[in-house]
């Protein structure tokens, strides 16, 4: 389907938007690289799911959201978190199991939420956040607010019953929610060529009577156009949309991945479609930002992540003493 609203300024045509877009994408890239490095050096524990290569979909989908709009995220959620504006230091602190981390060291990489920026939480359960997003959208609708919810999930998640039930609920109640499927071609090792018998995940929208659209997830402007149109519809009360952003993860699924299920060539080919490089070229060629500014943004990202990592490192470790009292929220009334 195509959006009913006239195309809005492309992020690459507006200096301020272009700046924010690149800043977000570079911060995600550098954050993930730092995490990768910390794991490689054995300084981080647990597991991790990096979104390097997927910076375009996270950034494009969150670019024009209001701070009071909400998102639900996934196990591969660092990018969503950063794109929505979370504190890099508190994120890094969480991954390092620090008391200053978003979850006070209780959740780690897969459970970061940030109420201040409307992040209702990453999720360790594939598709676990989708019904929660529908429910949050229901709350906003009942509260008479014009807030919307963007729910991120992967291609693999669309084979879970939770996806089906949540999209149906959102459709029949025309909830203000945008379902953003980051189709990176694999659910762990299982390719979409085998896991679904259709060409595009977006075709599943028809089963719920909701619009569905497939865009190039590595074209941050295409993602912005599709999601922004869906956001307008949702705010107007015209209900949910399924947006499929086709992208690719450069790294393995998690640290234990040996990449046996895909070829070096495939990975190399997708690396040539770097969403950041593509957008930098666009803004340069359009004369929106000059080389010096671009370099400045890159340098700032490196410095910000370095500072966040240092500050996080210096923070005290998570405390165990109040662990029993952390299970339940305190009864007010």
């Amino acid at each position: 389907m195509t959006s009913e609203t006239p195309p809005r300024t492309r992020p690459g045509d507006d200096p301020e938007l272009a700046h924010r877009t690149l800043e977000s994408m570079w911060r995600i890239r550098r954050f993930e690289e730092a995490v990768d490095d910390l794991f490689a050096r054995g300084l981080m524990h647990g597991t991790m799911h990096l979104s390097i290569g997927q910076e375009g979909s996270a950034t494009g989908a969150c670019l024009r959201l209001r701070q009071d709009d909400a998102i639900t995220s996934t196990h591969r959620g660092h990018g969503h978190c950063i794109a929505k504006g979370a504190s890099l230091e508190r994120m890094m602190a969480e991954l390092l199991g620090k008391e200053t981390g978003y979850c006070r060291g209780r959740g780690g990489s897969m459970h970061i939420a940030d109420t201040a920026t409307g992040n209702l939480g990453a999720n360790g359960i594939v598709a676990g956040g989708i019904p929660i997003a529908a429910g949050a959208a229901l709350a906003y609708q009942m509260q008479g607010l014009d807030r919307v919810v963007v729910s991120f999930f992967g291609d693999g998640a669309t084979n879970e019953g939770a996806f089906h039930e949540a999209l149906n609920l959102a459709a029949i109640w025309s909830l203000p929610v945008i379902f953003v499927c980051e189709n990176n071609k694999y659910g762990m090792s299982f390719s979409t060529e085998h896991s679904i018998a259709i060409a595009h995940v977006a075709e599943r929208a028809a089963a719920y009577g909701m619009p569905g659209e497939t865009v190039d997830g590595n074209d941050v402007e295409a993602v912005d156009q599709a999601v922004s149109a869906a956001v307008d519809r949702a705010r107007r009360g015209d209900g949910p949309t399924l947006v499929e952003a086709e992208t690719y993860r450069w790294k393995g699924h998690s640290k234990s991945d040996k990449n046996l299920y895909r070829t070096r060539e495939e990975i190399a080919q997708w690396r040539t479609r770097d969403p950041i490089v593509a957008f930098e070229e666009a803004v340069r060629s359009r004369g929106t930002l000059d080389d010096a500014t671009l370099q400045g943004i890159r340098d700032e990202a490196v410095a910000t992540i370095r500072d966040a990592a240092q500050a996080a490192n210096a923070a005290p470790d998570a405390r165990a003493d109040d662990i029993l009292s952390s299970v339940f929220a305190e009864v007010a009334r």
Partner: protein
Amino acid sequence: MTLTQHPHGAPTESPQTGATMRELTYSEAVREAMAQAMADDDRVFVLGEDVGVYGGAFGVTGDLYQRFGGERVRDTPISELGIVGAAVGAAVAGMRPIVEIQFSDFTCQAMDQIVNQAAKIHFMLGGELSVPMVLRTPLGSGTGAAAQHSQSLEAWFAHVPGLKVVMPATPADAKGLLLSAIDDPNPVIVLEHKLLYRQSGPVPEAAERVPLGQSVVRREGADLTIVATGVMVSRALEAAETLSAKGIEASVVDPRTLSPFDADPVLESVAHTGRALLIQEAPSHVGFMAEVSARIAESAALYRLLAPIRRLCGLDVPIPYAPALEKAVVPQVDSIVREAHDLVQGS
């Protein structure tokens, strides 16, 4: 006797506050709690399958749809996982959803949202969010609905850190505990026994809370302590009357809240009587009464035991359909009397 001084000793059937009481059925009491909460608080709403014009599979939501409208008494598709997930999302976004699942057996469809999401979000997210939702669902056998519509799964929920679990045994508790559950900023599972829905009893007119986490001593007797949950509470009380006629006096303790569990009234009663008979409808193996037994066995009450602890539970079988078979697999008044009698005489 020490038990009478016990704070939990006060029978909840009589109003703490002297408020007016009326006879209501258990399901009327549940409905009244929901109605009063919805009238008090715009954030409270009900969602579930056929809770609207149909009035609920067991008629519990009744006329709430007519009184509060389809927005706040919301019919849903047959999608338990989606419904509970929507409630979790609505709760983190500021609402106070009450989900009705038609039969507790169907919580199996929603376990991920109940256990991996609702129960863990507050802790896992370092307190960043909490999930003030209530899940109401009927459990138990006795209606001839067979194995997929008759389970008692309270032990599962009680085993999950982050969930509070209540099992009201009287109309007054059905109202008072539900009101507390709705107030609570955490997910609370309310397990209502189908066979209780039509039982009536005195219920305060006012929106009186019964606090979560307080067991109650429903009857006092010196010869043995019976601990029973749900529909087994009234069967135990009935059995106690028969036993009394035979000169055996039983105390009957109703935990009411399975998690957090208030064990003291049980331990004090057992220390006093020296005999414990633990009764549940659910299958015996790894059920809630195993926990009650363990609490006794790791306490000083152990030294006061005059006989081994006994459990009288459902057989470790799925619930069968045929009436005679269905009755045969769960404790009945006569089997309770027999067991109590053996316990007291045998020691």
